[in-house]
């Protein structure tokens, strides 16, 4: 079976028509005065899923999370959790917990007391609290920091305390608002995998809000890409990357080259697209593009080959001039300027130490790609 990307998933309830939705946003709208933060949004999240809400700041992703936590009520529409309508339930009665972007650790309490806080609210017996706190401290490897106050911890340690505090109550859903935003790059990468392990271990449903696409791609089972209060696409990371359904999603995730043009003709699933300068491209998987439609052809830099001569077997090849070269070690990025002035970004993996066909600035060059290497976008 052919699959997008390299991962075949065994956990995929979203493909199962009988799977029961766990969290469901139904036509949810949230307005703050004149401003519409979330606009008629419908979204389904499944149990034990690691779900990411990805978008630029102000796209409504945090509002969505805060509505789930109960800090905001939807202006219209409803939110269901495990079949129960959450409207009117205050945050302190909801079976969800949140890990705050600022961590919101109580500065006057020790690590231990912070973790125990939620358990105390439930009226859990002291002995059970102590046991659970010890368990949580072990989970996040902070046993020897139990008696410290938040200001005596490093950023990474604080993040783990916040995590331990929010999972201590074993919530049905854990909400994470930019959980790694305050950490430096190296720590962030380590912590991503820790979070994934933790989610597996505890079997919880995670909903994470992030503006960092790499983070979302690494951790999430599915990603919802949001813009202006609406979901643009919900899909697995590989689908989002390889099969974006709109210009916005294609441009938002990773680097991409976009060629605007018109569909000249369509035969079965193959279209020919003509650019404004007359250049022609043949693409398989045409999607819903009809003949005569204005479309964009989107292709990732690593799927484009750069060579000094036109490859004999190439279906699609365009000629240009090397405009810029960036050598990044593991790969080299070429910027090739086509006849019509468009810059094409192409990256090639440096699998060999020496190149047979070295290109340099201002050389004439051909960019070529297979007919199935990109997607046709109508939106």
């Amino acid at each position: 079976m052919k699959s997008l990307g390299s991962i075949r998933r065994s956990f995929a309830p979203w493909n199962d028509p009988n799977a029961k939705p766990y969290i469901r946003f139904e036509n949810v709208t949230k307005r703050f005065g004149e401003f519409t933060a979330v606009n008629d949004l419908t979204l389904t999240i499944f149990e034990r899923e690691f779900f990411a809400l990805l978008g630029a700041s102000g796209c409504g992703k945090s509002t969505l999370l805060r509505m789930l936590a109960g800090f905001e009520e939807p202006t219209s529409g409803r939110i269901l959790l495990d079949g129960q309508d959450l409207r009117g339930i205050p945050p302190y009665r909801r079976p969800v917990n949140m890990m705050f972007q600022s961590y919101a650790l109580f500065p006057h309490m020790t690590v231990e007391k912070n973790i125990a806080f939620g358990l105390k609210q439930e009226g859990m017996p002291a002995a059970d609290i102590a046991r659970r706190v010890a368990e949580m401290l072990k989970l996040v490897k902070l046993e020897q920091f139990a008696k410290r106050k938040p200001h005596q911890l490093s950023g990474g340690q604080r993040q783990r305390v916040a995590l331990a505090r929010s999972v201590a109550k074993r919530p049905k859903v854990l909400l994470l608002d930019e959980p790694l935003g305050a950490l430096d790059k190296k720590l962030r990468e380590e912590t991503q995998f820790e979070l994934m392990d933790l989610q597996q271990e505890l079997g919880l449903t995670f909903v994470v809000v992030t503006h960092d696409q790499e983070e979302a791609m690494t951790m999430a089972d599915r990603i919802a890409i949001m813009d202006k209060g609406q979901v643009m696409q919900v899909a697995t990371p590989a689908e989002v990357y390889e099969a974006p359904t709109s210009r916005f999603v294609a441009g938002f995730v990773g680097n991409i080259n976009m060629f605007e043009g018109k569909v000249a003709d369509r035969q079965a699933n193959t279209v020919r697209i003509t650019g404004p300068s007359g250049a022609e491209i043949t693409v398989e998987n045409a999607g819903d593009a009809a003949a005569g439609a204005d479309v964009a052809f989107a292709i990732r830099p690593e799927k484009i080959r750069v060579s000094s001569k036109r490859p004999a077997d190439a279906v699609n090849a365009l000629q240009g001039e090397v405009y810029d070269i960036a050598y990044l070690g593991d790969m080299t990025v070429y910027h090739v300027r086509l006849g019509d002035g468009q810059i094409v970004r192409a990256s090639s993996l440096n699998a060999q130490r020496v190149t047979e066909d070295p290109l340099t600035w201002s050389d004439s060059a051909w960019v070529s790609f297979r007919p199935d290497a990109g997607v046709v976008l109508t939106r």
Partner: protein
Amino acid sequence: MTDAAMSTTAVKAGGPVNAVLNRLVIIVPYLWLLFFFLVPFLIVFKISLSQTAIAMPPYTPSFDLSEGIGGLLSGLKELSFDNYVWLTQDPLYFNAYVSSVVIAAVSTLLTLLVGYPIAYGMARAPTTIRPTLLMLVILPFWTSFLIRVYAWIGILKPEGLLNQVLLATGIISEPLIILNTYTAIFIGIVYSYLPFMVLPLYSALEKMDYSLIEAAEDLGCPPIMAFWKITFPLSIPGVVAGCLLVFIPAVGEFVIPDLLGGSQTLMIGKTLWNEFFANRDWPVSSAVAVILLLILIVPIVFFQQAQAKAQEQGR
């Protein structure tokens, strides 16, 4: 004492002229405060050990500096603790001290009770109107203290506005006697010192991260409990600063008990004033001041350390 200011850690490069200028910044205010703030206290202490005399100045020994060291030494022999003994013999003083401390403590508590909801409400107000509210709270503080106390006379006296309103609405049938009672003093202190309580409370509450409250609620804590477990403990530095700012000056308050408290109420600031201006007994009033200072030294040091700590954290 000039050498007190000589060793600095952060003398910037820039030549001897700048080094001297750097030090002047310390030396000038230092000397000023030594001469006009610290030395006067030593003099008060010295005079509290002197005898009352009918002369100008009305005490002996006067330490006439023209007599030199010899005069100083002979003067020392004449010093005595008689004035302090006198303070213990007349119960008036003891009662005045006790009632001052009690009145100040009660009014501090009342000011806290009145001020906290105001500060809390301000800190939760939309950010756009917070500066305006802050200005509105500070504005009365810029108008004369004396005038604000005076304004209450017209309100509280038997034929004053409060009684007129209460009589007209039928809540009471006889005018309330409030002016010239301790109640009037409480009202006066709460009113005059309210901004001193509200401002530190506001700044403590305002800088508190609201997501802490959300976190508490998220973890199952209802809003009222979240207030007692999170908000209040975190505002304690503000509570302490506010209470000290009210309590310390209130103990020695003169204008409020004098104008609103009448002759029947007892407070040490008034006693000192009368001892000085009416009885012209400088040594006894000095002794009164020394004891008052001793009572206040602990809260003052506490206040000073709280300030220094806040300053360290602001760094």
